[in-house]
């Protein structure tokens, strides 16, 4: 497939606007599922439009979300109360327990029940362990998502410079705590003994934010307080440098506020 021609056609921009026909949109999604280049391009367009909308007051009001969430939470709690009220009540008819043969049958049933309970108890424990693992995984994912999606996080896309024009990454800065995170989109594998380093450009000086690993995970770098004009990534020797090697600048992105 000729990615360049497809991307250049402008179809992805229309897809993100929500105004392609459903058939056309599904075709875009099929390609996006097959080709990461297309998926990344869609994400970049959406991120840019969303940033523009939020920064220029064009995004839908947060009260729409808050009202919807209130309704959802109210409906959920009502549903839960109704379920509790409808739970069947267990009753025991003591008169049927009078005869001896019933007692014998009941004892046998009890023994069988103990055996079955033992089996299910083990199964339950195993399921509970699996659930604990799943909960742990959800908690980790949730933490990561909180960073990526939190409204207090400023999202700054970094674009490839001349050394590597196709490279890109995204930096998230928590505007309250000033924690800095980076997520690599595309960046060449650094040569042995080298590492990428993130810098904040303020008044013409590059301030170190930290080195990061070459992987696709969201990485927490440090807490960086203060304004800056742009963020930049350079290739440095492993462990980082005191001063940025600007000749080896791979990525750059402007501050959004």
């Amino acid at each position: 497939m000729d990615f360049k021609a497809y991307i250049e056609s402008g179809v992805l921009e229309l897809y993100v606007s929500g105004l392609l026909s459903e058939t056309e949109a599904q075709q875009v999604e099929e390609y996006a599922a097959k080709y990461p280049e297309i998926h990344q391009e869609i994400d970049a367009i959406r991120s840019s439009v969303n940033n523009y909308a939020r920064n220029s007051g064009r995004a839908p009001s947060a009260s729409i979300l808050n009202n919807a969430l209130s309704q959802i939470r109210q409906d959920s709690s009502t549903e839960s109360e109704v379920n509790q009220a409808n739970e069947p009540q267990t009753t025991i008819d003591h008169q049927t327990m009078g005869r001896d043969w019933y007692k014998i049958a009941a004892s046998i049933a009890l023994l069988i029940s103990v055996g079955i309970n033992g089996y299910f108890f083990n199964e339950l424990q195993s399921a509970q362990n699996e659930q604990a693992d799943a909960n742990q995984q959800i908690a980790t994912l949730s933490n990561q998502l909180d960073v990526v999606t939190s409204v207090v996080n400023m999202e700054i896309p970094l674009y490839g410079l001349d050394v590597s024009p196709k490279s890109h990454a995204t930096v998230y800065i928590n505007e309250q705590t000033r924690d800095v995170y980076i997520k690599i989109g595309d960046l060449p594998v650094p040569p042995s003994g080298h590492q990428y380093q993130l810098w904040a450009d303020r008044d013409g000086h590059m301030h170190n934010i930290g080195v990061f690993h070459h992987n696709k995970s969201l990485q927490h770098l440090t807490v960086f307080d203060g304004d800056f004009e742009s963020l930049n990534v350079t290739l440095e020797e492993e462990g980082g440098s005191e001063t940025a090697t600007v000749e080896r600048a791979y990525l750059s992105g402007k501050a959004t506020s």
Partner: protein
Amino acid sequence: MPQPVPLLSISVEDQIVRYLRAKNDRAIELIFEHYSIAMMNKIRSVVKNEAIAEDVLQKVLVKIWEKGDTYDASKAGLYTWLIRICKNAAIDATRGKDYLRSMKSESVDNFVFNGEAIHQKSVQERNSGVWESVGQLPDSQRSLIDMAYFQGYTQKEISHELNIPLGTVKTRMRKAISTLRRIF
């Protein structure tokens, strides 16, 4: 120097689907965060009244929550599914009495509501630091972006409004968004 802490990587779409299935309302927050602009745009393309369009978006979010566990990824992408729900809800809204009444009583205002809303935003921009960034967008590109992403214009409508061939809409859009991406 602090050591980087790697976290698990997963797409936002996948995360939303998982939250929807788990009946966790975080799904709705994520949908709003990432897709509400396009969803509102789709609704506006059908509903020409801002207050009713906002009401439709709110109802859509609740509907997504209710139907979330029935979403089938093998049939449609998450985004296409969301847009379809918006379209159907918007069409339903135009059949309601409130909508018909609003169209009769405020037809002129409704016809221009998007332009008016965007004009007001422009005034806000001038009064904030954002104006500097937005100002880097040429007016023609900015109008195109506003029409396509915030005023619910279809390709055909844009072509008619700007008096350009239908095929040119996509390429102009590509150029406009390229400029936008350099700024935002």
